[in-house]
Every structure is written in structure tokens, then in C-alpha cells.
């Protein structure tokens, strides 16, 4: 397993994690009380979701652009 592989995988995982977190924990597609439903549990979590998307895809950038470890 190369460093590149690890970091890339890490980025993907982090990105997905951020998305899942922002979506399910932050933005909260479900809610209990009527008022709660009108607010994300965590403000700006939609922004976090978008960041997650960006992080995940930037893994591709890293994977193809990072200097190869050998040579």
C-alpha cells in the first residue's frame, strides 16, 4: 500500500464522512419537533456537505498529481 494510496483513500473517506455527517447529523433529513424541522441541527452544515463533496473529489487530484514516491 503506497502513501499515495493511503492519502487518496483518506481523502475519499474524509469527504464521504463529512458528507454523511453533514447530511445525517447536521442537516438532519428527519426531525422530531415541527420547529426543529426548519433548522439544520448544526448551522452551516450544508456548507460542510459541499466541502465534503469537494474533499472527496480532490482525492482524484491528489492521486494523479502527487509526485511518485519512488525514483
Amino acid at each position, binding site marked *: 500500500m503506497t502513501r499515495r494510496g493511503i492519502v487518496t483513500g483518506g481523502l475519499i473517506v474524509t469527504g464521504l464522512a463529512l458528507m454523511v455527517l453533514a447530511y445525517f447529523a447536521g442537516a438532519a433529513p428527519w426531525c422530531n*419537533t*415541527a*420547529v426543529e*424541522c*426548519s*433548522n*439544520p441541527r448544526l448551522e452551516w452544515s450544508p456548507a460542510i456537505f459541499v466541502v465534503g463533496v469537494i474533499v472527496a473529489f480532490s482525492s482524484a487530484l491528489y492521486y494523479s498529481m502527487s509526485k511518485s514516491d519512488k525514483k
Partner: protein
Amino acid sequence: MTRYAMAVDLNRCQGCRACVEACKIENNTPNAVFWMHVFRLEEGEFPNTKMTFLPRPCQHCNNAPCVKVCPVGARYKREDGLVLTDFDRCIGCRYCEVACPYGVNFFNWRNPEEAWGEYQIPFDDPDLASVTGGAVPPYKNPDHDVRHGPEQRLTSGSAHFKGVMEKCTFCVHRVEQGMLPACVDTCPVQALRFGDVEDEDSPISRFLRDKESFQLLEELGTDPSVVYVGGNPPSSHAREIERPLTGV
């Protein structure tokens, strides 16, 4: 637990639009904006002509499409059943309006100043301003400048900003002071009733007890908080007559 609802007695409504006007003045809605609407409907051919009246406030649905679709949670439903618009958060995408099958939403298409201008009354007239301090309208209701409910949001009154959505609030600012909504309060023939339907002995609960009733567009499952007693849902052949000046 409180759940507010409105009952409309179609056997009594005489289509006078007192509710429409009371709402307009209480909530300071500008020209051409009537949060409360009263249909004057006509069907059939002379001489078998049928005429009916149908008051249409916001239905404050318990399963409100407008609340569902609001992208930023500006349109929201309160614990007590009121469906309100946070005019300080609304981004003006008007998704709530296309989602609402009842046509109760009013968008601030214009700068409120221009909307008030339609009345052609110089509110800034010095002789007037000396009395009203230049308030627009001169009968401006200060209750609308304060936050409401435990969630402390700006939800009452009209024409605060251009480009945001507004609608009937069940007079949240009055209800929170223990008063009836302006339309209910003024109805000359008690065709409108309002109260807590969770409370068995509230006037509205007693009024609705063992009475035939229907909701508008029940089939859509929006479950409105406005219940109609007497009469029938509007027929699809009904023609609306005598509409107010709602053009812009």
C-alpha cells in the same frame, strides 16, 4: 399541548369581506395584497343560479407542502400549529408558493414603498407626519417589529422587505397576546371561529363537536387546520365574481 385551528361556518358567511379588510389593516398589508381571501362564487344558469361564499385564509396545514419544500426553513410550522414565514430568512425562491395548492402566498414583488404608493396618499405630508412620525402606513402596527414564539423569529406583519414571501399568520402577534385573529374578531355574523382544538372545552371544539365538516382539497392529504362547516367544497364549475383589485 396547544393546536390552533379555524372553523368557517358556510351557513353564516355573507361574503362581506370584513375579515379581508380587518386582516389588511391589522397586518398592514400593502396595496393589492389580501392575505384573507373570500371567494364569491356563482354556478348554474338563470334563474337556477346558485351563489356561495368561501373564505380562504392560509390553511395552516398540518402536513404543509410549503413547509416541506422550503430550502432554508424560512417557512416553518410551529408546535401550536401555526405555519409561519421567517421574513428575515426567506431567500425569495417562491418554492412554497408553487407547492401550495390553496394560493395563499403573497410575494413582495415590489418595494413596499411603491406598493403603498398605489393608494396615492402622501404619507410623508408634513401635517400628517407631525402626528404619525411618518409611519407607513399611518396606522402601522408596532407588534410586527418584534420577534414571536419560543423560537423568537420575525414572522408577523407584511411588507417588511421586497423579494420575500408572506401570507396569513393566523395573527400570531394577537394569538400570543391571547386575542383572536383579526378576521375572526371582526366577523359580523360569527362565520369564523378560532381556538385550541386539543382543548376539549374550547369554544371551537364545542362548536365543531358532532358537526359535518370538510377541509379544502382533503384528497391531497395536506390536512389543513382550517375546517369548513355547512355547505360543500367548491364545485369545479363555480365561477369567481366580484374580485378585489389584486393586479400589480
